[in-house]
């Protein structure tokens, strides 16, 4: 701390030459001049450091002790500023550098969105912008809890969002909602149809006229519960059919897999090209011109910055990796295992969130020396009820039922 204060105020290192060095030090002390780093170089010469403001007193004492004073070093901010008085541009450059460094350390210089598959990153960044979170925003102004809550209200596709500042970069970790469920307005009449082919195992109907029974086999689109009720008391009327129809459903995937495959294999040779992008205009920063491996794999790394909160720039790094066609030979067992796994993944991607997998069957046929045909079948248990707008039948004049204005549109049933 003392050193910092000394640097800010400035100090000088002087040499005192004379035969009365000790007397000089005593007189300096009597005159209340603080001294430090006092080195006796030889019998007649002493080096010491004093504050700038005490230098005038030193001259008087030197005269008294018949010593010669020389300034050996000038250290501290006043000298530094004095040196740069003539070099104004250098001083301005230093000040600008300091301002930029401070700005970069106190403002967000980039926003990275992680964990999104369905929602475009740009959409989240735009939504954050509407809430006041943008590149160039002061770090201390970020209210993480508030932004998190507002984002979850703003975007229905977001199940959870994490706002994690790290240095001057803001990381947005998003968990997307698995399935956005369409809801038909309760005041609109609708039927329930089969969303998938299957055998009905359980019916839990709360409203509407059930037209199928347990163990009935239904095809996709078949009517399960009608939104038109004919009752003795009120006659014919339209209702919003409600309920769950659980069925045993089957999903089947079949495909051929090969023991010998030609796949692109990376050779290890790569070419990196970096571009600076400003408002759609690209300038190459590094890397040779012309692509060496245009057919190879390309990895793109993009970083967005906003200089001083005004100039949005992007640094885009393309890494082209050379590939060559290589033949990969797999064993029968390996091909079958991989094929089954791939088909399972294909089927799983078609299943709903609440679908229960009850049984998985797989089978394969060796077509020839190179080809194996694999079949995977899932037996599932799920709610196949799908709401569908009822054909408009005007019972209003007779019964005062629900009038349907929206026809011919299908939506997933309300939860």
């Amino acid at each position, binding site marked *: 701390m003392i050193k910092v204060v000394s640097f800010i105020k400035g100090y000088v290192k002087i040499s005192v030459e004379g035969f009365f*060095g*000790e007397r000089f*030090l005593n007189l*300096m002390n009597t005159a*209340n001049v603080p*001294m430090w780093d006092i*080195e*006796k170089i030889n*019998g007649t010469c*002493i080096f010491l450091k004093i504050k700038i403001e005490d230098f005038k007193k030193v001259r008087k004492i030197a005269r008294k002790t018949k010593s010669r004073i020389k300034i050996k070093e000038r250290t501290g901010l006043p000298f530094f500023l004095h040196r740069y008085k003539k070099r104004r541009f250098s001083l301005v450059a230093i000040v600008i550098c300091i301002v930029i460094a401070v700005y970069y350390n106190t403002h967000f210089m980039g926003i990275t969105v992680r964990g999104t598959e369905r929602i475009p990153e740009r959409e989240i960044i735009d939504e954050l912008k509407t809430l006041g979170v943008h590149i160039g925003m002061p770090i201390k102004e970020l209210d993480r809890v508030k932004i998190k809550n507002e984002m979850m209200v703003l975007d229905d596709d977001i199940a959870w969002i994490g706002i994690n500042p790290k240095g001057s970069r803001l990381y947005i970790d998003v968990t997307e909602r698995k399935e956005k469920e369409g809801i038909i307005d309760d005041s609109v009449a609708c039927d329930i149809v089969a969303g998938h082919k299957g055998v009905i195992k359980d019916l839990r109907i709360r409203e509407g006229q059930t037209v199928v029974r347990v163990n009935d086999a239904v095809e996709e689109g078949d009517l399960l519960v009608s939104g038109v009720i004919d009752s003795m008391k009120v006659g014919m009327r339209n209702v919003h059919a409600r309920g769950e129809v659980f069925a045993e459903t089957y999903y089947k995937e079949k495909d051929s897999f090969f023991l010998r495959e030609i796949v692109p294999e990376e050779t290890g040779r790569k070419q990196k090209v970096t571009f600076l992008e400003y408002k759609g205009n690209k300038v190459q920063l590094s890397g040779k011109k012309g692509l060496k491996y245009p057919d190879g794999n390309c990895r793109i790394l993009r970083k967005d910055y906003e200089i001083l909160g005004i100039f949005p720039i992007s640094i885009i790094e393309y890494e082209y990796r050379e590939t060559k066609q290589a033949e990969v030979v797999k064993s029968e067992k390996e091909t079958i295992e991989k094929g089954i796994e791939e088909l399972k993944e294909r089927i799983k991607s078609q299943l709903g969130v609440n679908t229960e997998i009850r049984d998985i069957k797989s089978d394969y046929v060796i077509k020839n020396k190179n080809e194996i045909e694999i079949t995977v079948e899932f037996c599932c248990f799920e709610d196949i009820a799908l709401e569908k707008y009822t054909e408009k039948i005007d019972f209003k004049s007779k019964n005062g039922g629900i009038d349907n204005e929206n026809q011919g549109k299908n939506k997933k049933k309300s939860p």
Partner: protein
Amino acid sequence: MIKNKMANIISGAEEIILDTFKITTIGNERINVRNYKLIEEYTDSLITLAVKNGNLRIYGKELEIKNISDSELNIEGRMDEIKFTGGGK
């Protein structure tokens, strides 16, 4: 006697009340002298300080006065011997 009692009560500033010097050493590399009178001799092997009722001689190698303030002095170096001799200022 009164001075001694006062010095006991106000610990930490005994040298001021008793008008004498106080030496504090940290190992044999640092020494702090308070309430000295004058620097009599200063070389890299001997520093002589005038204190009340005598002289304080510090012998050693590469001795250097790190800083001097109003009534305090700090010395650094490899100290071999500290000697007090009567008859000083």
